[in-house]
């Protein structure tokens, strides 16, 4: 019992620590630096501690310090309670969604089975979608409670966009769920033990569709119509400053990580190495009984998982800095007229393929 508690506490600490203190701040730096180098610039590199700049990493710290000490501004006429609650409502779902994502396999450590996922839910996929749709409330409330026309328009756009893509996003994954015959993310990962069983092999159209929906859900360029800075000033967070602003910012980055992690779990084999099965890896280090072998395998798996996540984050960042912004009505058209029908067709194709045996069952 104690061991289970300790294990869970460690896992929660790991996930949240990874997200909030590693990924979220570093993504700010990655976004800056990557876009800069892509755009033939150098990027922020001046903040230093004792003369050391570490290619601009300290800017993240100085930004955070600056934003924390900024005036927390609530405009006149704003709904104070909602205005304060909105950023938290946007950030929390993004974090909670991470609890069902397995970042490793199952290992035997000193007679205790460790399952590297915070909550092994049977309906993991559904849970992710259910939670991430809650993020819309934060955004809508932020837009509405600011008492600003631009925020209001941004909130409206965000509401419409996020709810539309919610529908399509759920459907894009259904083919995959049929293929793996499970809604549990742990099971889905466990079934991807060889390269041929990775989701991307058969389900690459679903990956494109899911990825589109996920970015749209996260409201990043090219789908950043709700916050389009040249149209709506800053959209729903126009009236936010300081710590509340940073929470929206972090929600976005955490969501980036969540999207990448979900894609890895569903399409890129999770923690699995391409050609070595879990058991094979543990055997290579000295067999299932050895705790050291298990620990080593666990470390390698976590690193593999994180590396895959990083590659997908890089991919998202590249897209963000490459494409222009959709017009708001085109976003909706894309969601309802292209992605939704396409995912329905894909479900149909997968169903037929599975029934006829064209696609092997797992």
């Amino acid at each position, binding site marked *: 019992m104690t061991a289970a508690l300790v294990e869970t506490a460690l896992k929660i600490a790991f996930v949240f620590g990874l997200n909030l203190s590693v990924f979220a701040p570093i993504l700010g730096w990655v976004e800056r630096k990557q876009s800069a180098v892509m*755009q*033939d*610039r*150098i990027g922020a590199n001046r903040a230093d501690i004792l003369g050391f700049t570490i290619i601009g990493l300290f800017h993240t710290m100085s930004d955070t310090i600056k934003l924390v000490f900024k005036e927390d501004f609530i405009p006149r006429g704003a709904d104070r309670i909602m205005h304060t609650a909105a950023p938290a409502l946007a950030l929390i779902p993004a974090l909670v969604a991470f609890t069902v994502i397995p970042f490793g396999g199952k290992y035997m450590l000193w007679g205790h089975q460790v399952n590297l996922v915070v909550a092994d839910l049977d309906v993991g996929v559904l849970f992710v979608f259910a939670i991430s749709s809650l993020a819309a409330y934060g955004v809508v409330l932020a837009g509405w409670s600011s008492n600003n026309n631009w925020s209001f328009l941004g909130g409206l756009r965000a509401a419409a966009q996020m709810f539309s893509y919610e529908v399509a996003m759920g459907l894009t994954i259904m083919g995959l769920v049929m293929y793996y015959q499970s809604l549990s993310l742990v099971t889905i990962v466990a079934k991807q033990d060889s390269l041929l069983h990775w989701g991307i092999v058969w389900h690459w159209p679903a990956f*494109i569709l899911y990825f589109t929906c996920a970015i749209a859900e996260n409201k990043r360029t090219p789908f950043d119509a709700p916050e389009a800075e040249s149209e709506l000033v800053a959209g729903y967070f126009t009236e936010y400053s300081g710590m509340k602003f940073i929470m929206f910012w972090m929600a976005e980055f955490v969501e980036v990580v969540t999207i990448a992690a979900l894609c890895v779990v569903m399409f890129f084999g999770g923690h699995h190495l391409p050609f070595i099965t879990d058991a094979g890896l543990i055997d290579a280090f000295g067999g299932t009984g050895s705790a050291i072998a298990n620990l080593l395998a666990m470390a390698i798996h976590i690193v593999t998982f994180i590396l895959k996540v990083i590659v997908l984050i890089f991919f998202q960042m590249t897209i963000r800095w*490459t494409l222009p912004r959709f017009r708001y009505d085109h976003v909706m058209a*894309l969601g309802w007229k292209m992605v939704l029908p396409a995912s329905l067709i894909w479900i149909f194709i997968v169903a037929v393929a599975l029934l006829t045996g064209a696609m092997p069952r797992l």
Partner: protein
Amino acid sequence: MATTIKKVRRNVTLTLWEQSYVPEVLRGMFITLKHFFVNLRGLALELVTGDRRDRKISTIYYPEEPVIPPIAYRGRPVLVLGADGKEKCVACGLCEAACPPQCISIVGGERGDGERYPVRYTLDGTRCIFCGRCEEACPKEAIVMSDDWSGLCGYDRSKMIYEKENLLVPEARLARRMAFMRDKAFGKDRY
């Protein structure tokens, strides 16, 4: 020459595959990633070799790396201090008349030997637009646009009004620019 009219490529037709956004996204990413890796290689090379030319990015690390403006550059206008320790200005007032924003004001006087000189020469840095009319108008090469652009901004306007003492710069430091104006820009063979 005959007028030739060129119709722009308006009717860009997209195939169904192109309409699905995917190829364009990939193509765009290919371009940005190409820039990314070329620049990354350049930056890494520079770290190793320390040679600025390896850097593909043209950004200059100012102030660690100096910025050398071209000779034609019009920076802060300065008065020329002759080799004899006297200013070359004879307070003729041409710059004062030529200055479009009227930022120069001169109070002239005479030295003991009858030579005219500016008792006060005030240049209002808040009004100066660095157009170089004073330098063109000056018949004595006494006011010159230097290549100095630093220290022109500040928090206090009253500190931006330069008196003669703040403006004087030894002739040796301005010789290149003076020669440029005399021989190149307003040289004899330009007419």
